[in-house]
């Protein structure tokens, strides 16, 4: 097996890696996925909330990986009042163990291969070009030859760095997270809940994503630069003691969510980065599953075309960088500017924002009416939001 040669090796079999592998294989490339863990999707480091519109182009809905159906969101302000948003699209809370496995299986059905317990540890270079990947499997160091390496290796990505793409993020561009899966609790059945405020969760938020009649993923993300003195778990324990004093904790996971500005440079000669590895995460919501899948399709198609054309240099692969920026990357850059504004907001500001939202009738709950209300209530905030958009536009040139 290790002597085999592939066109494309994908490091990491999360959602981004599996979709990349599927589209590259469908385009005629020989593809191998290397996954460090024993199987894709485990352990789950995710609150598992996704929009229906985001995932359904890639997979048929299946009860096996749908834990709950979501009709909207409730936003809680630090002062205790809240606003419901029920006209902003529907979603699922996933069973990601099963979801990720199914995405990997779809790649295999398209002709890709998968090797688990295979920990990529470096690149193979030949005549100044990328010629393969070194990995550890059952304690043995092996190499696999290929022409394109795709780094789909998550928040802990190193593939980019091996190829000279600096993917390190600033402390303010990562949320440090702790999540409990709680049982024996009462939640709102079809709403995801979010709690904001500097006392609750500095620079981030607490989430409650229902998974069944009496269970939910309840977690917290704290902005890295505000996490020096108190660990996210301490904030979470305080929150759970207040809201769910009788809960049982079934699972605990830790994790990090990159909330960075979308980098423009995500390919190199023989190298492409997708998903968390390319910091393709919405910096305001922290959602990265759909982003990784959208990028995976583009990366997989571009990789297959590059293999066909015989040119795997950045000249060809940068078509992927461009497609990503156009589809979601530029929006992510705008969101990042907004996040920077939100990071500077005090609790009083949050309270005012939520009171403003409360005045908008549900049926009219879209960005336009929000904007209209917000102008009336808090012209300064609107000016700041507008400036955030403007700054991004100028920077985007």
């Amino acid at each position, binding site marked *: 097996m290790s002597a085999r040669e592939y066109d494309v090796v994908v490091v990491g079999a999360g959602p981004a890696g599996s979709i990349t592998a599927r589209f590259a294989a469908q385009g005629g490339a020989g593809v191998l996925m290397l996954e*460090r*863990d*024993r199987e894709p999707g485990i352990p789950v*480091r995710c609150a598992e909330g996704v929009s229906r519109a985001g995932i359904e182009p890639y997979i048929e809905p299946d009860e096996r990986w749908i834990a709950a159906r979501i009709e909207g969101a409730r936003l809680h302000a630090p002062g205790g009042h809240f606003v419901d948003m029920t006209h902003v699209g529907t979603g699922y809370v996933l069973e990601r163990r099963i979801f990720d496995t199914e995405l990997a299986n779809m790649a295999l059905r398209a002709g890709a291969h998968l090797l688990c*317990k295979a*920990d990529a540890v470096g690149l193979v270079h030949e005549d100044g070009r990328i010629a393969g990947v070194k990995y*550890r499997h059952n304690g043995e160091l092996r190499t696999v030859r290929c022409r394109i390496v795709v780094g789909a290796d*998550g*928040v*802990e*990505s*190193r593939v980019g*760095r091996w190829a000279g793409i600096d*993917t*390190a*993020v*600033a*402390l303010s561009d*990562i949320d*440090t*997270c*702790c999540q409990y899966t709680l049982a024996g609790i009462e939640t709102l059945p079809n709403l995801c809940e979010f709690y904001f405020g500097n006392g609750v969760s500095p620079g981030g938020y607490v989430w409650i994503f229902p998974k069944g009649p009496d269970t939910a993923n309840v977690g917290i993300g704290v902005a*890295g*630069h505000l*996490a*020096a003195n108190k*660990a*996210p*778990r301490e904030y979470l324990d305080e929150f759970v003691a207040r809201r769910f004093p009788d809960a049982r904790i079934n699972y605990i*996971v*830790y*994790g*990090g969510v*990159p909330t960075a500005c979308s980098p423009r440079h995500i390919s190199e000669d023989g190298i492409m980065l997708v998903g968390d590895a390319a910091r393709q995460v919405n910096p305001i919501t922290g959602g990265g599953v759909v982003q990784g899948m959208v990028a995976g399709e583009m990366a997989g198609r571009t990789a297959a075309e590059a293999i066909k054309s015989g040119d795997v240099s950045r000249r060809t692969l940068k078509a992927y960088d461009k497609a990503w920026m156009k589809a979601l990357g530029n929006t992510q850059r705008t969101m990042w500017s907004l996040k920077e504004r939100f990071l500077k907001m005090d609790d009083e500001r949050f309270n005012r924002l939520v009171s403003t939202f409360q005045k908008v009738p549900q049926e009219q709950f879209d960005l336009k009416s929000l904007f209209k209300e917000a102008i009336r209530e808090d012209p300064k905030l609107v000016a700041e939001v507008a400036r955030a958009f403007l700054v991004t536009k100028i920077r985007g040139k």
Partner: protein
Amino acid sequence: MKVNSSLCDICGTCVAVCPVDAIRVSEFCVHIEMDVCTQCGNCLQVCPARAITVEGDAS
């Protein structure tokens, strides 16, 4: 910098903020290469499990 392997959840958050790529993750452990580490403290601050300590620090 030292990783306490009984606290570490192998979540990889520390790797993302290390400016000099001094941290390696495997399925079972996380390791900091001290001859590369510049002691900037980034990993310490974002580790959600608080598994990293300054070497020689009593805490």
